[in-house]
């Protein structure tokens, strides 16, 4: 199926909510009304995903736990700034968590250590997403499996460029320097890879 780019309806690949449970949006509205139980439910629903994201950025268990707590506190404090017209609650939380994790990485001067670990990982397995999806892994959720299928369909060089940009917060020039690749090539890899993922996710919507 060809997916045109003219559609501007917001899309979400969030996993389905348990039957009878409040939607993410309902929880966000309750948090905006300062209901702690709503934050508790949102935490139960998404702490694993956000922790995984933070860990992917900073590679430190204790720092990730601290940051996770800070991020949910920020969700509580900043909930009034959330607008459903601009996107889904999970997207908003992930954006916030990613920004905080990348800031944390830089501020805590863990950058050099993480860089060294990343270098080791890159040498062992240039594709971090593939690195995370070993066969020994416990059974993946349908959502995650489908998303990974889209991502793993990309050439490794495109996956690596997107991984470094998204999870490391690297600019195109930084990626070019890190991977010893011409800047124009990095830009092309990012553009092609992101377009393929974007189009793939659009098509996934029908399967989720």
């Amino acid at each position, binding site marked *: 199926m060809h997916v045109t*780019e003219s559609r*501007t*309806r*917001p*899309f*979400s*690949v*969030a996993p389905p909510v348990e039957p009878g449970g409040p939607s993410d949006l309902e929880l966000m509205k309750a948090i905006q009304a*300062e209901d*702690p139980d709503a*934050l508790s439910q949102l*935490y139960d629903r998404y*702490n*694993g*995903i*956000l*922790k*995984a*994201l933070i*860990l992917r950025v900073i590679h430190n268990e204790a720092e*990730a*736990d601290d940051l996770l*707590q800070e991020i*949910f*506190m920020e969700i*509580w404090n900043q909930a009034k700034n959330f607008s459903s*017209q*601009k*996107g*889904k609650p*999970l*997207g908003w939380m*992930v*954006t916030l*968590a*990613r920004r905080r994790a990348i800031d944390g990485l830089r501020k805590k001067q863990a950058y050099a250590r993480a860089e060294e670990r990343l270098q080791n990982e890159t040498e062992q397995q240039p594709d971090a997403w593939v690195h*995370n999806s070993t066969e020994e*892994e*416990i059974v*993946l959720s349908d*959502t*995650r499996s489908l*998303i*990974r299928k889209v*991502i793993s369909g990309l050439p490794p060089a495109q996956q690596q460029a*997107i991984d470094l*940009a*998204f999870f490391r*917060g*690297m*600019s*195109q020039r930084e990626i070019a320097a890190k991977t010893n690749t011409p800047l124009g090539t990095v*830009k092309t890899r*990012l*553009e092609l890879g*992101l*377009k393929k*993922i*974007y189009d793939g*996710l659009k098509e996934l919507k029908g399967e989720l």
Partner: protein
Amino acid sequence: MNFKEFQNQSRLYVIGALEAEELEEFEKARKKFGKKAEDYIGECYGLHEAFALSLRPAKSSAAIKDRLMAMVRERKET
């Protein structure tokens, strides 16, 4: 910049991968395309959600939630 190019740039923008000189052009195009541009950028943030969901969820200490909820309830009471 036409809208197709803007769409390409939007995907780079949401993951913070635009270089400074590209960002300037992007912001000009963003103003030019108005609501259509804002809607598209909003849609591109779905990529953040997808990248996070591509990761295997990690376990966190139970104490984290206890501390968080204690802080939230304390904040609410003050």
